[in-house]
């Protein structure tokens, strides 16, 4: 029973018993040892279900959208990525800061449920300590610059057009359009996703590589300047499409083109594609 | 002055004129005959056809008149006209191209100028350099004005500005090769 887990239960119990919040979202042990799915606890007596181990991989923030107009506050256990996700939802007007009690946890990285090694998304994590919280468990750590996380993107960029095309065609050929990537992504908070709309002409419903690619590219472009690099989309993709490579390509370009911007680190600065500067780089003269 | 029949056989010249104009990099139609080139030409006063009229002749397809004008020989290639032309027409390049074409067609309108340049090049071909004394001596001899610039000869030799013996370069073979390769493409019509 590690210290964080004890603290989690204690805090959750207090919050629930005092009626500060009427539900708490954390993690609990799943059926298998390598599974710690999210836990939704409303009764202070059930706080023992809360656990903190190396498999608390799932993001907690997006579950706030299940019932956005719910009365009462929600206690949310938030690691570094979840805190940025909360900022994302606040900035997109989907949740109100005052409805959440954020219990920050200084995360030290989770393990991949298959390889049992440090999960890819955690190796690349730059903000392990939550950037927004009401109370904090664990020792805060300064954000870490990790330029090597763009290495895969840089390598792919050098390849010839034909090679790049084959690579992505092969990846998107696997896509089964389960939309897990969209469902888990905190930046994907539209009421009705373009992929679900009928006869607008964005996307064919046919399930073949070309339409898959249009879906993948369109979604990547939608979250280009809002992706918080939580890495969940790539993790949850049942067929293992390297979606984070697409997102990182866009993030790298946006940082190079419009200056250093980390989505979700604060809820004030607007995403770069929603604003402009008179001396933006000029390539179209 | 006989009437110029513009439509007769004009086209044949047009093709030839277009070729010459493209060698000189000149768009004949952009010249609106403003005369600024003729006005500024240092040799203009001595020309039978001012630079503007040479272009006018070409615009109207009168290639032979242009090639027989003395102007294209008098042109000193000083580029005043091309620099000042309001339409950016490179008249100097056109004059040069016409002069080369006239030489090719053996239309020598000024014997002395032709003679001077031929002698100059012959010297360069053999010595690799241009020996000024030999050049002026040969020119005076062959042009018939034996005593031209003789007044300056004494001082030139006394002050060492002239010497009889021509300075020859070592690799004259390379120079002859250049002449041979450049002029062999040249089949005089």
């Amino acid at each position: 029973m590690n210290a964080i887990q004890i603290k989690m239960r204690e805090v959750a119990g207090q919050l629930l018993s005092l009626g500060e919040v009427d539900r708490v979202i954390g993690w609990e042990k799943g059926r298998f040892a390598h599974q710690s799915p999210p836990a939704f606890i409303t009764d202070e007596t059930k706080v023992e279900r809360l656990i903190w181990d190396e498999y608390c991989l799932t993001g907690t923030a997006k579950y706030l959208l299940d019932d956005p107009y719910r009365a009462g506050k929600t206690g949310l256990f938030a690691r570094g990525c979840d805190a940025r996700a909360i900022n994302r939802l606040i900035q997109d007007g989907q949740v109100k800061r005052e409805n959440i009690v954020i219990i920050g946890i200084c995360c030290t990285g989770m393990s991949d449920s298959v390889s049992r090694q440090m999960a890819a998304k955690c190796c690349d994590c730059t903000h392990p300590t939550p950037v927004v919280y009401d109370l904090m468990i664990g020792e805060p750590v300064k954000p870490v610059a990790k330029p090597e996380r763009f290495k895969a993107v840089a390598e792919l960029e050098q390849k010839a057009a034909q090679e790049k095309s084959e690579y992505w065609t092969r990846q998107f050929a696997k896509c089964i359009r389960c939309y897990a990537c969209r469902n888990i992504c905190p930046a994907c908070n539209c009421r009705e996703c373009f992929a679900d709309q009928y006869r607008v002409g964005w996307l064919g419903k046919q399930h073949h590589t070309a339409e898959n690619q249009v879906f993948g590219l369109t979604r990547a472009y939608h979250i280009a300047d809002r992706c918080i690099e939580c890495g969940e989309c790539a993790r949850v993709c049942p067929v293992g499409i390297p979606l984070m490579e697409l997102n990182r390509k866009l993030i790298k370009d946006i940082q190079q083109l419009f200056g250093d911007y980390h989505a979700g680190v604060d809820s004030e600065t607007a995403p770069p594609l929603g604003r402009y500067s008179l001396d933006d780089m000029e390539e179209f003269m | 002055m006989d009437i110029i029949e513009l439509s007769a056989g004009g086209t044949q010249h047009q093709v030839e004129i277009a070729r010459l104009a493209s060698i000189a990099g000149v768009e004949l139609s952009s010249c609106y005959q403003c005369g600024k080139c003729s006005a500024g030409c240092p040799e203009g006063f001595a020309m039978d056809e001012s630079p503007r009229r040479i272009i006018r002749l070409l615009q109207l397809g009168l290639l032979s008149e242009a090639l027989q004008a003395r102007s294209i020989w008098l042109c000193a290639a000083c580029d005043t006209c091309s620099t000042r032309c309001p339409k950016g027409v490179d008249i100097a390049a056109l004059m040069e191209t016409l002069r080369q074409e006239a030489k090719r067609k053996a239309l020598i309108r000024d014997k002395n100028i032709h003679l001077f340049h031929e002698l100059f090049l012959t010297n360069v071909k053999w010595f690799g350099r241009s020996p000024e004394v030999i050049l002026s001596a040969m020119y005076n001899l062959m042009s018939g004005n034996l005593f031209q610039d003789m007044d300056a000869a004494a001082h030139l030799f006394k002050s060492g500005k002239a010497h009889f013996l021509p300075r020859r370069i070592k690799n004259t073979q390379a120079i002859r090769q250049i002449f041979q390769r450049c002029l062999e493409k040249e089949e005089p019509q």
Partner: protein
Amino acid sequence: MALMTEANWEPKVLAFCCNWCSYSGADLVGLNRMKYPENVRIVRVPCSARVNPQFIIRAFQRGADGVLVAGCHPGDCHYSTGNYYTRRRFLVMKRLLEFIGIESQRFQARWISGAEAVKFRDTVTKLCEDIKALGPQRKLRDQK
């Protein structure tokens, strides 16, 4: 459409032109009777900021061999700030398209004012020539 054999294949290039500048620049090309290849199809939009980068992905997927997005010069936009957003959006989308393997010449964005007929003609002509050289665009295409 007649079956296009490789030899007489004619590319089809889509051009999104903003109504105030590049569309009227295209008209001016016509007014001056200048010529450019027949492969271009122009879609009129009120402002280059109306062109959603998703239209480009969609165009390539439906069969476009090349796409041009043309707008007013920054500072001249009829809606004052429209093309500032266009510039950012297509600086990013241009790189994304190259990243997934679409040759860089196939997608062009250009600022063309209502008076720059020559620039419009030259941009479009060069675009068609480049694409003729590249051959048909088969990436992102439905696997028919």
